[in-house]
């Protein structure tokens, strides 16, 4: 059949007509079948931005004023730093660094980045935590002259995160008394946080926040080194922190 092209109105009418003639199935007992499948489950809780995902206990760390939100965020791959109006001092949090191990045992199983700086070459304590988020290695250094104890009780704490950095692994909330600066360590982007203690937590591959890691932290340098996110927490100057960071191989 040869016919003239349809006008716009005719084409629209034809489409509506097709809609009225669709041989779509008439669902039967769909509600019952859906109910049978959801009976053992509940809606999953919303995955909220960092600040609002904190459990009530964690809220003791924050004093969130009007307008405080994730708008003021500094990002390096794998890390989000949030400005918050204030950070209050919580009761001391137990430090959970994972399972105690030794540097030699760790070297046999993994390739931790090790500092060539004399003061940081041999950690006093070594911990490892393996999870869905990847592997986390912690080097702990006891306080000593030039390395005073920080909020963790250690003189310095080096955390190495080898999980994917595509999703933010680490969240930091910093108050007005804390300085946050972008920096570069061996050509890689980094963040230097100095001043009043800030709070810190990390998120696993599923996006869940690990509350046990929620605690106050001292001066901190975060940088990336060959696919690993390294966090140095020590009461040292920015220059000294950058020196130590550059010594990691």
């Amino acid at each position, binding site marked *: 059949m040869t016919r003239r092209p349809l006008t716009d109105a005719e084409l629209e009418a034809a489409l509506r007509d097709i809609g009225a003639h669709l041989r779509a199935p008439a669902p039967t007992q769909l509600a*019952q079948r859906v109910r049978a499948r*959801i009976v053992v489950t509940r809606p999953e809780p919303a995955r909220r931005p960092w600040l609002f995902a904190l459990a009530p206990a964690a809220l003791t760390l924050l004093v969130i004023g009007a307008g405080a939100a994730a708008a003021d965020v500094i990002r390096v791959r794998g890390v989000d730093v949030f400005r918050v109006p204030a950070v209050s001092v919580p009761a001391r949090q137990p430090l959970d660094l994972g399972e105690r191990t030794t540097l030699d045992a760790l070297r046999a199983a993994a390739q931790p980045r090790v500092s060539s700086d004399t003061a940081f070459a041999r950690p006093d304590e070594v911990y490892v935590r393996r999870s869905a988020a990847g592997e986390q290695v912690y080097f702990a250094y006891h306080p000593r002259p030039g390395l005073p104890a920080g909020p963790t009780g250690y003189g310095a704490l080096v955390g190495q995160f080898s999980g994917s950095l595509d999703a933010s692994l680490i969240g930091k909330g910093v108050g007005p008394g804390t300085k946050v600066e972008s920096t570069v360590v061996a050509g890689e982007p980094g963040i230097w946080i100095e001043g009043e203690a800030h709070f810190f937590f990390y998120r696993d591959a599923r996006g869940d926040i690990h509350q046990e890691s929620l605690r106050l932290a001292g001066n901190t340098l975060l940088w990336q080194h060959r696919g690993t996110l390294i966090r140095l927490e020590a009461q040292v100057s920015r220059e000294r922190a950058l020196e130590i960071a550059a010594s990691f191989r």
Partner: protein
Amino acid sequence: MTLPDGQPDEHALVERARRGDGDAYGELVTRYQGIATRTAYVITGDASEAEEAAQDAFVKAYRALGRFRAGAPFRPWLLRIVANEAINRRKSMGRRATVELTEASDRPQGDRAVSPEEAALATETRRVVVAALDRLREDDRLVISYRYFLDLSEAEMAEALGVARGTVKSRLSRAMARLREVMRD
């Protein structure tokens, strides 16, 4: 809150379902099962796949209720999940979707019956347009289907397609232009 006809309103049902109330969610399923299945059918072109897709989408939507923005319209949000589920099924079916039409007689025009000639012309027009739709890209088919088969508003289409409201107009206009182009070939 309930509507004048005694039915609880959508927001109230969603809120109850978010708290794990299966009855409330069952009510939402009953309310939207028709449009959900039609959406899935337009995409898959297969009745049984469409029913399965709609069912899976309702289950996924329930689990995702925690991420649903309180106070937002539920129907377009649900349709987006349905469409994703149906598109995945259509891809795994490995063939293009072709919808089938019923043989139902055409509706009378005003106060007079449709003549046999008019009915034949309407059937032929539907055949030509469906054949042209089958040759369109999936996103073009979807936007046309939402507008003319499911009669969604622009706001609902924007939500269901996950685009800005202004984008809906331009996307629909481009899809209609491509449909005309295909019909000219």
